């Protein structure tokens, strides 16, 4: 447990790179030390395999948040007393850390929202409403989460632009042969960096370049990327990048939209209210500069401090190491699941572990994902059944639900063995 809740040094401790020490990591996550009582009264270690939906958080994050609540909490930006200043520093300190973590040239380009969904709605509701109309097109992909579909459909109903879809193949990878044609007349290409269903990693830089070559902007849904791999928005050369705090060891209630300064400056505010104005008269208002313009109302103050502590934690591990750990676990999982379950098991998505993130969407014989999850819960194995908010992709695969196991820094091969064992049980139970 950390002794201080002040910002951890951003320079990870020097010395030889240590092996990824899952036991030490787990010790930082109080929730993972819980035992779950099953129906026969036995107690089982919690096997948490649902981080793609939301991760758990370490003491370092919880303590950083507690510290603000206990010693430095007040509303931000508006008070002159010391507490208010400390709260403002905690809030803005989080912003700076996140900017550094994603390679943003300027912390004012980091806009806090409530989650990635709101970030994408901000792009649609502000940039889209200003720039899209009949005859225009927005390009998205069949891999998208509903958060990167529905905001465009809502706006298209009003602004009458076209929505186009980049197709995917059976392996869950984007089919890019016709990308240039699809981009004709497109003003914005909005796509995921990693599918939350198949784990498919998309070639972000290549897609951004293709969009720019056709005069379109590129918006990246990095909700599953930022928590799991090194991300540098400058290297991506993207125009907008959206992600959520709760999937990367941070608290719920905070999300990020990073945008290129010139674009953000030209965009109208998204929500109106306090905190986003320079002046208000009976005639109208003058919006504030960045980032305030897009942060109407009391922002996620303590959550920013928590998310700052989360990126410190991840930086100390090193995002390259996090990615490597997940590739190894994914490879292990694919191998052991296939060996144990063989025919009848489908792992949707790319067959090459290095081409995917740590997300395994499974279908097993005719056993429904809901039933699989129920049986797995008996073994204290937490996975997620359902459509994972990606119904167009599910329809493409011809399934209504998958059972999704997703990995993070606190998982190890024991967790995956527990998963495999529980799946074998589920198959037996439902043997048709």
């Amino acid at each position, binding site marked *: 447990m950390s002794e201080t809740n002040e910002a951890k040094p951003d320079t990870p401790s020097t010395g030889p790179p240590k092996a990824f020490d899952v036991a030490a990591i787990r010790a930082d996550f109080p929730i993972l030390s819980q035992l779950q*009582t*099953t*129906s*026969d*009264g036995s107690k089982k270690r919690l096997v948490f395999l649902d981080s793609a939906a939301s991760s758990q958080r370490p003491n370092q994050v919880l303590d950083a948040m507690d510290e603000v609540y206990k010693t430095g909490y007040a509303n931000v930006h508006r008070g002159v007393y010391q507490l208010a200043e400390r709260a403002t520093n905690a809030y803005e300190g989080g912003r700076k850390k996140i900017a550094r973590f994603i390679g943003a040239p300027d912390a004012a380009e980091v806009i806090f929202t409530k989650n990635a969904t709101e970030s994408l709605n901000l792009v649609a509701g502000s940039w889209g409403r200003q720039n899209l109309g009949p005859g225009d097109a927005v390009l998205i992909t069949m891999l998208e989460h509903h958060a990167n579909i529905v905001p465009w459909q809502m706006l298209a109903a009003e602004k009458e632009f076209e929505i186009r879809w980049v197709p995917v193949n059976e392996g869950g990878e984007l089919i890019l042969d016709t990308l240039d044609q699809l981009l004709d007349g497109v003003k914005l290409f909005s796509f995921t960096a990693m599918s939350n269903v198949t784990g498919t990693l998309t070639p972000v830089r290549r897609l951004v370049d293709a969009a720019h070559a056709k005069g379109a902007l590129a918006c990246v849904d990095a909700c599953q990327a930022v928590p799991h791999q090194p991300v540098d928005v400058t290297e991506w050369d993207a125009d907008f990048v959206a992600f959520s705090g709760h999937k990367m060891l941070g608290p719920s209630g905070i999300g990020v939209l990073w945008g290129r300064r010139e674009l953000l400056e030209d965009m109208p505010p998204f929500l109106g209210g306090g905190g986003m104005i320079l002046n208000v008269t009976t005639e109208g208002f003058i919006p504030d500069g960045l980032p305030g313009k897009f942060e109407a109302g009391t922002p996620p103050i303590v959550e920013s401090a928590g998310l700052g502590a989360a990126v410190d934690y991840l930086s100390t591990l090193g995002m390259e190491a996090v990615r490597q750990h997940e590739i190894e676990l994914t490879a292990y999982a694919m191998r052991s699941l296939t060996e144990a379950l063989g025919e009848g098991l489908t792992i949707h998505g790319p067959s090459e572990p290095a081409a995917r993130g740590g997300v395994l969407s499974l279908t097993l014989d005719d056993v*429904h*994902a*809901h*039933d699989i999850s*129920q*049986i797995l819960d*008996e073994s204290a194995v937490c996975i997620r*059944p*359902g*459509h994972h908010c990606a*119904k167009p992709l*599910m329809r493409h695969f011809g399934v*209504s*639900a998958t059972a999704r196991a997703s990995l993070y820094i606190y998982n190890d091969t024991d967790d995956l063995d527990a998963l495999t064992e529980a799946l074998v049980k589920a198959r037996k*139970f*439902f043997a*048709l």
Partner: protein
Amino acid sequence: MAGLEDLYREIILDHYRSPRNRGELETPPAHRAEGFNPLCGDEIVVYVEADENDRIRDIKVGGQGCSISQSSASMMSGAVKGKTIAEARGLMGAFKAMMSIHETDIGGDGSEAEQGIDSPVETIATAELKLGDLEALRGVVKFPVRIKCATLSWNTLNQVLEEIEAD
């Protein structure tokens, strides 16, 4: 603590493995409604053909879902086939009463699964109507998140019946 055998009774698994009244009916004369469980992606289609005396002459069920939603649909179809619409609503009320212990607690999301049979016929029906096989689903109330699976087909049936009555 409730065990799996409370949920997955043999008769439920039997209906799941060999669902009754699977298929489609021609519309018209039949009416059709689709139900969704937005939580898990289950989709169900219920076809009902009623005669001039409001008796359910035939019923078919399509779609896909988990063992609970599929077996519940299968049992529902068997239970209401040949009944009048009023009798079907009585059964619906009784089933709903059996399931209602938790449904309001688990956070209704205003979805279609929530609507429809909120004001069932008086609950005295519970005692008087024979739920038969449907009794096997009683254990579902111990697994609150699965209640929506069990009620999906009934809510969808309710939509079809409303359409028939509106006709």
